[in-house]
């Protein structure tokens, strides 16, 4: 039984903790994969299915913070929940600064870890949605003709049709036609939406 296609990756060197966290998450309907070290997790990190990671902060070899850094260094943007023991709060704070979604102190009530995981997955989903959106926008930009692209750049820079016509050495009427095509292809309902899309994918010209 799974609520969605998300997977929770549990990384802890203590077998009992690993197993019990996994069981708890499974009982809440999550698909779980466990790893007994950060190294093993990193080996698979590049090709992970959608999900979030629950990482113990204190581990031999690579500890939780080092694992977080290593993931970021590889461009793997997976939301992370940190598990800490007594007295590890300063480490947890450092983990939060480095971008962890949350930290839970062991031992924890089920709703605490489940809430954190839920938050992390929501974030993952949001990031997934954003990524998909950006991909779509890029795709649309790809679909523009060179002239349409030129017109979009000028629009994003905020120039009125007349200025664009002068700059591109075409008639204002032609500008208008291209502009309509751009708005249609980019699926932008307004100029401000078009600007937002351009900014999001970083195609704003100088």
């Amino acid at each position, binding site marked *: 039984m799974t609520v969605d296609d998300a997977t929770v990756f549990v990384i802890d*060197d*203590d077998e*009992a*903790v690993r*197993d*019990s*966290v996994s*069981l*708890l998450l*499974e*009982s*809440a309907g999550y698909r779980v994969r466990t790893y007994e070290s950060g190294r093993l997790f990193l080996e698979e990190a590049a090709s992970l299915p959608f999900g979030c990671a629950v990482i113990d902060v*204190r*581990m*031999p*070899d690579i*500890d939780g913070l080092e694992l977080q850094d290593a993931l970021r260094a590889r461009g793997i943007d997976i939301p992370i929940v940190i598990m800490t*023991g*007594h*007295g*590890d709060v300063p480490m947890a704070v450092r983990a939060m600064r480095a971008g962890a979604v949350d930290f839970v102190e*062991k*031992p*924890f*009530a*089920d709703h605490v870890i489940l809430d954190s995981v839920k938050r992390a997955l929501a974030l993952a989903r949001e990031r997934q949605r954003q990524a998909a959106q950006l991909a779509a926008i890029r795709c649309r930009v790809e679909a523009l003709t060179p002239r349409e692209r030129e017109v979009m750049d000028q629009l994003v820079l905020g120039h009125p049709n007349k200025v664009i016509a002068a700059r591109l050495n075409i008639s204002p009427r032609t500008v208008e036609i291209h502009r309509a095509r751009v708005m249609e292809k980019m699926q932008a309902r307004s100029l401000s939406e078009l600007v937002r899309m351009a900014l999001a994918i970083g195609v704003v010209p100088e």
Partner: protein
Amino acid sequence: MPSDQTDSRLRAIIETSVDGIVIIDTKGLIRLYNPACERLFGYAVHEVLGRNVSMLMPEPYCSEHDGYIRRYLHTGEKRMIGIGREVPGRRKDGTVFPMHLSVGEGEENGERIFVGIVRDLTSQREMNTALQQREAHLRSIIETAPDALIVIDERGLIDSFSPAAERLFGYSAAEVLGRNVSMLMPSPHRELHDSYIRRYLETGEKRIIGIGRVVVGLRKDGTTFPMELAVGEVNSAGRRQFTGFVRDLTEHQKSQKRLQELQNELIHVARLSELGQMASALAHELNQPLTAISNYLQAGRRIMSMSGGDVAKLSEIMEKATVQSNRAGQIIRRLRQFVEKGESERHVENLNKVVEEATALALVGAKELGVKPSLELDPSYRRVLIDKIQVQQVVLNLVRNAIEAVATCERREVVVITGVEDGMAIVRVRDTGPGLAKEVQDNLFQPFVTTKPKGMGLGLSICRSIVEAQGGRLWATPNPDHGVTFSFTLPLAEKEGDDGG
């Protein structure tokens, strides 16, 4: 017998006599003066012949001697003749000495003569004086010595009871003289003492004479006290006596006990401080099973609340939770034993088990440091006579030191080894750390010497006290390649000999 033969015999006797022989006439003039006299008085024969014998006496005898002779000739009352007595003599150099003088009376050519035989008493007198002095000396020692002196005869009856003995046992000498010395000891010695003496007299086997041992004494008021007893034997004029020197050990044992208590307290404090330093690691170690238990139970509840909860699955989860709570219990048990104060008690223990347990405790937190300790245990599983907790404290301390030493090194190996060497059990803790700095090496076991920023420098010095108190030795040797090995020995239980009873 012809008279000339008698003469020559007499002459020989007079010449060779060790005693001085002087013959005087009724006027007191010296007629004969033998060589012994020459030696005795320092005058040569020619210096005295014909002179008054009073020259050989000090005053007042010197002036009165003629009167003595006159009175005797007049009254016939013998004050000296045939009696003999001790009188002073006077040498040529004026010195006076004690001598024994016996006087006899005779006749020579119809004239009365007196024969005096003189024996020098100087050396005898000196001997007597020395003897008296020695006796006085001995008596003063006996009277004032803090140790009590009791002399008994071969029946065990008390011949002498010194003032210190009176103070110690509470009896006056008058109360105990002539009574059996067994009255000063509690059972079973009280009943057996006579047989002890008998056995010694029969077999000559010395169990206490010349050896001494600590025994228990019984005071008049019925209280007992520890005492050190040394017994000597005197054999004089066919009489055998035994002299016992008794030292009260009450104070000694009290201070020993107090010292032991303080030592134990220090050891306990060190143990607590050691654990204090491990507190965070221990909390973590406990937290793991607690977390797992909590998770298993919550997962179980969730599964139960779902319709058609899987009973087999639930049972498996319960089992897992139980295992984890045992794991937590184990940690706490180890800890509790360690924290408990307890008197220092020695028991026969399995060395491997003791070392294994202590190492397990020391390994708390070691995993995070990436240290992999290993055990190489003696396959013969020897038993030792030790205070288990204190020895575990030593192992814990040494293993934790080793873990700390290797934590920052490339090679992070710690090996704990048990074995037997030269009739002693031995435990070694070998690490691959940076080794010991020269300046530390020399006073490694001194208190307050430390290389740790937060250390008190008491750990190793306490370890050494512990090991030495159990009859072992603790030392450190650098390894040929990396790091250092700490070793300590402990007495094997198998070797435990006769307890001396």
